[in-house]
């Protein structure tokens, strides 16, 4: 049983403690509360570096120091505080950094409301458990044999076939019916690789539809996106050793992951609104009358500062878009403003919750919209790398990881 140490404030009183426990149980883990003494809580300033007004946050920090002193107490750490609590957000972030810097224990940081359910937390908990449980598998750096990966995403379904550490075939279709789309993408990948389905030694699935697709195709590995994307990103960016940051702006949610030696350290998943997702860029492309594949190139010629754009809501964002066009803004400026708006929300909401260390690798289909990584570079003041096959990142990660299971 994987032990996840819960360092939190407010979960019981928000009525969500049961949901946290349920999510942990669903992924084969249990929540534990490291023992600390009253003295540990009283002396938290000396031990951790700060004492705050809310006692339960001091207790959470005291528990963090216990874990760092005795890493055998937990396999993973879940730090959670109430959404909209400034004091909680500061402490949550400091605990995350403290654990990350002083131990090799994976950390998940989350802010909940009374509406948080076990289902919302499931993918995050699954990633946390995988990271803690399969360190050996995740340490794998080379793909061997002939394997495939399918990423059944909310907007698109992707597939790759890999042989001896090389991508030899790819397939990409918009997601309609989950299984049908997976089949189409997989067949396209097999065809472009020139291999038959029967020859594939192992298949890995990821993405929203991973369980359904995995079951249908007899996958050897069914894995959430945090783990496979981290692995796929560092593999394709040739950054398997040392630190890295992976940013994936998806169709429905975004992921920001601090990676150490190819293994997720801290990560966040989510996004306040569709305003910070691939959907908004799709909508922008449609409104500008260009293909989504052309939006990036158009944006590269534009200046985001010429168009005010609301980055917190797809409805208001679209309104800004329409208003600026009717006010005579140039399409290239609007395109760049849209990219900047999405990047800005990810930067403000999620990149503050992880350690941003170079190389910064942007993956997923949205990374190919050139304006988006450029906007991210401007915000971070760092170079952003977009590896080849960035849109197939989940498939590559799944294919790489499943080859480890085939060998075993």
């Amino acid at each position: 049983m994987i032990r996840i140490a819960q360092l939190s404030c407010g979960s019981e009183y928000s009525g969500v403690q049961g949901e946290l426990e349920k999510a942990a149980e669903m992924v084969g883990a249990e929540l534990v509360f490291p023992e600390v003494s009253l003295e540990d809580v009283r002396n938290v300033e000396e031990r951790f570096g700060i004492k705050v007004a809310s006692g339960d946050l001091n207790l959470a920090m005291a528990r963090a120091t216990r874990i760092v002193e005795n890493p055998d107490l937990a396999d993973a750490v879940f730090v959670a505080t109430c959404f909209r609590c400034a004091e909680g957000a500061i402490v949550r972030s400091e605990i995350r950094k403290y654990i990350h810097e002083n131990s090799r224990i994976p950390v998940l940081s989350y802010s909940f409301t009374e509406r948080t359910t076990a289902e919302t937390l499931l993918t995050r908990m699954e990633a946390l458990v995988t990271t803690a449980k399969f360190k050996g598998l995740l340490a794998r750096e080379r793909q061997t044999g002939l394997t495939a990966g399918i990423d059944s995403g909310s907007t698109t379904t992707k597939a790759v076939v890999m042989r001896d550490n090389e991508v030899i075939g790819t397939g990409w279709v918009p997601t309609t019916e989950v299984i049908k789309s997976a089949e189409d993408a997989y067949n396209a990948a097999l065809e472009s690789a020139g291999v038959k389905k029967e020859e594939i030694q192992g298949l890995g699935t990821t993405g929203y539809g991973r369980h359904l697709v995995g079951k249908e195709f007899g996958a050897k590995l069914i894995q959430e996106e945090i783990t496979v994307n981290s692995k796929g990103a560092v593999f394709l960016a040739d950054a398997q050793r040392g630190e890295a940051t992976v940013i994936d702006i998806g169709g429905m949610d975004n992921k920001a992951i601090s990676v150490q030696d190819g293994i997720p350290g801290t990560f966040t998943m989510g996004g306040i609104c569709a305003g910070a997702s691939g959907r908004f860029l799709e909508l922008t492309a449609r409104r500008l009358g260009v293909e989504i594949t052309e939006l990036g190139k158009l944006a590269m010629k534009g200046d985001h500062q010429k168009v005010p754009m609301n980055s917190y809501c797809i409805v208001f964002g679209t309104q800004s878009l329409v208003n600026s066009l009717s006010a005579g803004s140039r399409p290239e400026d609007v395109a760049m403003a849209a990219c900047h708006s999405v990047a800005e929300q990810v930067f403000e909401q999620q990149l503050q919750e992880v350690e941003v260390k170079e190389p910064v690798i942007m993956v997923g289909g949205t990374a190919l919209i050139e304006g988006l990584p450029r906007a991210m570079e401007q915000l971070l003041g760092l170079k952003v790398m977009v590896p080849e096959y960035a849109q197939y990142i989940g498939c590559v990660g799944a294919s790489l990881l499943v080859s480890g299971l085939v060998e075993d």
Partner: protein
Amino acid sequence: MVKVMVYPPTSMILADLVERTGHEALVVSKEVRKKVNTPGLDSPPLNMTPEDPKKGLKYAAVDVPSGVRGRMSLLGPMIEEADAAIVIRGDDCTLGCTGCARTNELTRFLLKTKRIPLLELKYPEDEFQAKQFVHKIREFLEGLN
């Protein structure tokens, strides 16, 4: 007999002193007891559910963190019921029901603005302070009769 809310609402010292003088101490454990004994509710450990922070909307707006509103759903009815209150200030061991500083501030504010007899004091640190502490509380409680 007067209903005296004590704060921290988990304080054994305050509850005990109140009940010694024949008054009723309003303490959070009685609220928790109601919750844990509610049949059909199964949301351990406190049997609080997402409905509780919604009940807390009576005391704090929706943009106040859920943990504050959830705690207020326990403490709010006690504040309403209170005829008097004794509040410890400046204590550094506040956990659980008093683990959130914002909730503590809001509770103190609501008790103050309710304009009921209110005694605020600090935990004693030496024997002199302890004698004053016990004496002040006794005087306050006897004055409520």
